[in-house]
């Protein structure tokens, strides 16, 4: 296990940098994590992050398809907001575990 310092607070993360405890997450931390991934967060980013956190807290599996049907953003837009590996990046910034999904 590792420690990361975001907004002056020490956070426990796994070896890939995902939060171990999603409840310690704040929006200000999200901005700093995003910076590490070279992303500047907009309101739309936060809408997506909130959607993912809500779904995660409800115990639901997170999939790209689910994001596309969320009404928050379509799949192309999701790839545009978090270029490269959108689900992994968004989960990391949202302070939730890496989604274990093949779709």
């Amino acid at each position, binding site marked *: 296990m590792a420690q990361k310092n975001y907004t002056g607070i020490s956070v426990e993360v796994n070896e890939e940098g995902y939060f171990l405890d999603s409840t310690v997450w704040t929006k200000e931390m999200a901005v700093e994590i995003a910076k590490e991934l070279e992303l500047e967060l907009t309101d739309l980013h936060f809408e997506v992050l909130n959607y993912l956190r809500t779904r995660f807290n409800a115990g639901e599996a997170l999939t790209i398809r689910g994001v596309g049907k969320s009404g928050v953003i379509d799949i192309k837009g999701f790839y545009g907001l978090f*270029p490269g590996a959108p*689900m992994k990046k968004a989960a990391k910034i949202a302070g939730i575990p890496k989604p274990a999904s*093949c779709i």
Partner: protein
Amino acid sequence: MENKEEFPLKKVCIICAKGTIEDVYATLVMANGAVMEGIEAKVFFTFFGLDAITKNRMNKIHTGTIGNPAMRMPGGLPFPSLLGILPGVELGVSAMMKSQMAKLDIPPVDEFLEMIVAGGGEIYACKLAADMFKLKKEDFCEHVSAIITVGDFYAMAGGQGTQIIFT
């Protein structure tokens, strides 16, 4: 000394030559999985695999009920090959497979292709097979970028960290 340096996968070029549910979905899952991870994906459909991108066939693909020793009845008993030849059995088995996949949030073929393209993946049809089956660009779904030759396909497969996968 042995060089153990690893180069991350950057691009996959996937070939799908068969039109059964399991062959087509293996291709789609691998292609979508690649773009989800930020890996470039080019998918080349050929021979019966063209069914997966042909407008009037793509959402009607079946699984074969004959000659598949891994086929099981619901409950796990072996599926007798003779049963597989009865009219309607292939349709029923295929419908059952599709409903099981839908429960896992696996999309239908057209939506799956849309997801891959939305993620930057590219879909191609094989020219030789399209000529053979007398299919034209307008017979294929909108997600197909072009009808290309095998040479065009190989030309896309350059670069370190590229793999060609035949499903």
